[in-house]
Every structure is written in structure tokens, then in C-alpha cells.
């Protein structure tokens, strides 16, 4: 605990501490305006006071890339934000390994120098810088790989069009290759020599580094494989879109385009071999006793027709078979005329005499036949529909010696109308 406090106070005594803290706070204070600047590519100078602007410029946060250019965020700040927000549009991949290795060499030499002089504090300091440098290098690869994974997992969703996605994959593939090339530069034989017999150095420069690099390589090969697959998928989509666009453009330009008679070739291409549909209908069969119950159930479940069934073709079929000499067309016409009569009754809503209607419309039917058909039609209606009509038969006793009644006329009316009259 005391060591921690000591370390803290020693860090605080470093002049960098105050400066760095001040600048980080400066970023925090202007976070709004800076983020706007990040997204727009330049900052709006009017949203800052002159004093704040000076501070930000002196603090190496804003700069003016060119005299004529508006103020914008320094590249380092841009990169910081892109890294923090995983913004793949702006995130940069730094795959430069050579410089890191150079610096590592220099640090190790300084460290050896300090040790030979017996300067413990200086060698400690150099060791710290060296550790940081090695971690920076592996961290940089780690970031780059993480960025590649992130782009891969979001299927390059940060660009919208397929063409851009394909370009982005190509870019990612180049970055990946550069990182792998960077790995090749790291020569572990050199590093082993450099570390010499120093255990701590060996651990840092050889065993740890090797473990990280091989881990990263494995990850990179996986990314590479996935990039190839994704690219194949995007290319496939692109090819389909092109095919659809071009074929439709071609067909529009060539309205009389004829294709070959593939169906009658000796080798019919499989793409057109599609059998036409067969609908296997089954019908009600009562030749099996065990089915009768199920069929009866079905028959009972058939919903009754609520609309007046005025299509009387079906209902007059019994009539047709009894008078076989009547021509079918004539019979249909009769049924239709009766149907019209019913419709007329529905529309007029007053009771209408059948004989009068026959005369009015100058229909060719014999009155007896006509009345018979009306009665048949009425009797043939479903019970519910029958109730909405009222049929009155005008009949006379034919002779005092028997009970034969002859119907002279029928009057058909709507029942609801009657009720209306009765209540009104």
C-alpha cells in the first residue's frame, strides 16, 4: 500500500503528469464540439471562445492542416476516438514492425550500458521503456486484428453498397498481408542473441513475444479464411444482381428474343425439367360401411346457405326429369324467369300476383306451367329463406263432388313487409 502511494506521488512529481492531465481534461471539457468535429471532418470555430481555441491548438488537440483549411482534429486525436469507438471508417491499422524492432534494439543497448555502469535507476527506467515498447508492438497487432474481426463480424456494415464492401474487403486483405509480412521481419534468433543470458529480457523478448505472435498468426489465418468466404458471398450477390439487371435490359431491347426448344432436345436440360402438378381428388364413396358414420358427420357439418338460393338450376332438376320432353334450354329459361319474378318481389316489397306478372312481362309460358314453377321454386327454398317469403294460393274448388282445388293464381310477397304493415 505504501509502495503504491509512493509510486503515485513519484508519478505526480513528474512534470508530464500535470500537463497530460490538463490536456485530457481539455478533451473532456470540449467533448461535444470535438465529437462534432470528428464526425464532420472539421470543427466549427464559432462554438469555441478564442481562449479555448488557443488552448486546444497549443494542447495539440486541434490543428489547421493548411492555411486555407478549417480547424480540425489532429490525426492522433482522430485515431484515439476511432479506436475507442471502433469506428471502422476511420480506424487505422499500423502494421509497421521495423521501427518497433529498431527501438527495441536501441533500448536493449541502453539497458546493457546502464547495467555495465551499475546505474540501477537508469537500467530500471530503460527496462520499463523496453517493456512498454514490446507491449505497444504486440498491442498494435492485437488492435489491428481486433479491428479486422470487428469489420468481419459486422459484415462491413459501415459501408452500405456491395461494391464498397468488396473494396473494403480487398483493403482488409492487404492490411492482413502487411501484418503477416511484419511478423516475418521479427527474427527470434536475433532477439535471443540480444537478450543474452538475462532471464527477464529473455522472457520479455523471446518467450512472451513468441507466444503472442503465434497466437496472433493463428487469429490472422482465421480472419483470412473468413474474408475469402465473405468475399465469395459478396461476389456471388454482385454477380446475381448484374445478371438480373443485364438480362432484363437485354430482354427490353430485344422484345422478339426467342429461346431454343429445349424441351424437345435429345438431352433436356435439368433446369427446365419440372413436372406439372397433379391434383389427386378423392370423392365421397359409400361402398364401405365403416365410413358411413364419418360421412354422415361431414354431411351434418355442412353449413346451410343463408343467401336465398335463387340459382334454381339445381332445384328444378327433379322437375326436368319428370317432364322429359321439355327442352333443357327452355326449362332453364323458365327457371330464370321465375327467378326474376322472385327478385322482382324482393325489390318491390309488395305482394305480386304471379298471373299478373306473367301478363305484364309478356312471357311465353302457359299460366299453369308458370304457377307450377313458382310453387316448386318456393317449396324448394331452404326453410330459413322460405320464411322470408309469403306465398298465397288463390284456389277454387273444382267441383262440389270432390275436394279437388285448382290453383288459379299465386301471390308472392315478402313476409317482413307484412309484419311491418301489421305493426305499423
Amino acid at each position, binding site marked *: 500500500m505504501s509502495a503504491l502511494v509512493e509510486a503515485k506521488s513519484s508519478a505526480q512529481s513528474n512534470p508530464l503528469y500535470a500537463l497530460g492531465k490538463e490536456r485530457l481534461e481539455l478533451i473532456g471539457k470540449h467533448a461535444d464540439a470535438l465529437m462534432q468535429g470528428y464526425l464532420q471532418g472539421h470543427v466549427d470555430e464559432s462554438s469555441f471562445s478564442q481562449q479555448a481555441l488557443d488552448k486546444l491548438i497549443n494542447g495539440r488537440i486541434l490543428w489547421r492542416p493548411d492555411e486555407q483549411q478549417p480547424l480540425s482534429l489532429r490525426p492522433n486525436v482522430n485515431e484515439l476516438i476511432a479506436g475507442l469507438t471502433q469506428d471502422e471508417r476511420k480506424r487505422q491499422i499500423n502494421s509497421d514492425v521495423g521501427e518497433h524492432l529498431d527501438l527495441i534494439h536501441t533500448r536493449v543497448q541502453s539497458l546493457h550500458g546502464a547495467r555495465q555502469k551499475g546505474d540501477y535507476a537508469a537500467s530500471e527506467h530503460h527496462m520499463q521503456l523496453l517493456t512498454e515498447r514490446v507491449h505497444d508492438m504486440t498491442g498494435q497487432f492485437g488492435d489491428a486484428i481486433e479491428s479486422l474481426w470487428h469489420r468481419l463480424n459486422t459484415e462491413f456494415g459501415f459501408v*452500405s*453498397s*456491395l*461494391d464498397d464492401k468488396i473494396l473494403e474487403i480487398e483493403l482488409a486483405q492487404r492490411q492482413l498481408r502487411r501484418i503477416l509480412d511484419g511478423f516475418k521481419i521479427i527474427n527470434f534468433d536475433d532477439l535471443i542473441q540480444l537478450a543474452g543470458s538475462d532471464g527477464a529480457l529473455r522472457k520479455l523478448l523471446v518467450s512472451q513475444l513468441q507466444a503472442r505472435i503465434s497466437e496472433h498468426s493463428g487469429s490472422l489465418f482465421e480472419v483470412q479464411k473468413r474474408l475469402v468466404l465473405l468475399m465469395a458471398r459478396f461476389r456471388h*450477390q*454482385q454477380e*446475381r*444482381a448484374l*445478371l*438480373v*439487371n*443485364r*438480362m*432484363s*435490359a*437485354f*430482354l*427490353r431491347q430485344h422484345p422478339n*428474343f426467342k*429461346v*431454343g*426448344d*429445349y*424441351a*424437345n432436345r435429345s438431352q*433436356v*436440360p*435439368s*433446369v*427446365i*425439367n*419440372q*413436372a*406439372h*402438378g*397433379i*391434383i*389427386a381428388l378423392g370423392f365421397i364413396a359409400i361402398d364401405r360401411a365403416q365410413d358411413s358414420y364419418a360421412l354422415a358427420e361431414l354431411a351434418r357439418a355442412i353449413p346451410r346457405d343463408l343467401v336465398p338460393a335463387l340459382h334454381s338450376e339445381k332445384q328444378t332438376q327433379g322437375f326436368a326429369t319428370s317432364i322429359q320432353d321439355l327442352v333443357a334450354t327452355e326449362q332453364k329459361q323458365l327457371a330464370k324467369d321465375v327467378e326474376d319474378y322472385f327478385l322482382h318481389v324482393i325489390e318491390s316489397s309488395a305482394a305480386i300476383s304471379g298471373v299478373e306478372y306473367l301478363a305484364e312481362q309478356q312471357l311465353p309460358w302457359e299460366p299453369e306451367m308458370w304457377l307450377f314453377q313458382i310453387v316448386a321454386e318456393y317449396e324448394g327454398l331452404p326453410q330459413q329463406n322460405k320464411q322470408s317469403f309469403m306465398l298465397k294460393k288463390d284456389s277454387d274448388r273444382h267441383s262440389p263432388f270432390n275436394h279437388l282445388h285448382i290453383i288459379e293464381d299465386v301471390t308472392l310477397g315478402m313476409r317482413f313487409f307484412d309484419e311491418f304493415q301489421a305493426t305499423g
Partner: protein
Amino acid sequence: MIENGPLLERLLEGEFICAVTDEHSFHKLQNAQLVEDLNHFLRPLNRRVAKSEDGAVYFLAYCDLNQQARQQLSHQFNATVQSLLPMLEWMQLVQEAMGKDGALSAGDTIKLQDFESKVVDNQSLSQRLAQLSSDKLFKSTSDKSDMQIKQVFKRIKELGYLYQPHKDRLFYIVTGKVEQLIELVRFIKDEENVPISDDISEQEAMF
């Protein structure tokens, strides 16, 4: 075999089975043994289970290409070719309205409401829709975009290229039959040497 009755019946009726229309049956059909059993049953009906080149959709094909089968194929193929341009135009229209860059493919979903609002907002799209819907494949007589859209989608559903999971919701999923159509287009292009892949730059300048 009894449990595969409904599947057989649907295939016989000319249905295309894909992961969208019936995922369960689709997976069943990936079993070679089952397909063999079905084929054994279908043999007297001169039919066998076939699939598209990429395996996205199953349907029935003729075993023996006799005169009757050829006549049927010829008839059907002509109908497909006749409806090819309106189908492709429909695919383009949906693709553009929904802001996609790839052509429609099986599993893509289309909400009719979204599509309609995109089309209504864009005059060129609504003109193209009007023209497309009056094609003899769709036969819409309405001059209202929403009716045209309904008619077009209804017809394409009837043709089997769209699946509507809920009867009362205007929400469609593109079926695997579209893949078969694309394969047909690719086949015609290759077979008839349609000059659409040779000179890319010239073609692209046209669009």
C-alpha cells in the same frame, strides 16, 4: 411412407419445397434414403424428386421424357420465358426500393408497407410499378399504387416465388424458387450466348 403422404401430395401438386416454405420437409428431403423411397413411389407416375443446382429448393421432375412430358415442359417453359422480363423487373424494383445491392434471394423479407412507402415517395419507381403491374402477367387495372402492389405481390405469391407466413399480414418472404429462376436465367444466357457478360464497361455505361 404414410407420414410422408402430405409431403408427397404437395410435391405432386407442383409445389416447390424450400427452407422458407417448409423448413421441416426441406430438411427431410436432404436425406438421400427418403428421396430414394419417394422416387420409388413416384416412378409409376413418371416423376422423381429433383433439386436446384445449389440445393435450395426441391420439386418434382419427369423421369422419362416421353412425348407427353416434353409437350408439358415445352408449354411450361414458354410460360416461364414469357413471364421472365416482368419477373426480373419486379426483382429489380424491389431491390431498388428496399435499397439492397444484391439481387433478391431466398429468405429475404419484404414488408409491403415499407415497399409501398418507398415506391410512393419516388416518382420513377411508381411509374415503373404502374407499367409493370399492367403487364399481362399481373393484369392490374387499378391506377392506385397500393392496389397495383397488392395485385403484383398476390400474383407472384401464386407463382410460388413469395411465401406469406400470416394470411392477414402483408409480409412476404422470398422462396427458394427464385434461385431456380436465377439458374434458368443463367442457363439461357449461356445457352443462347446472350451478349451480356462479355463487355462489362459498355454494358455498365448503359445503366
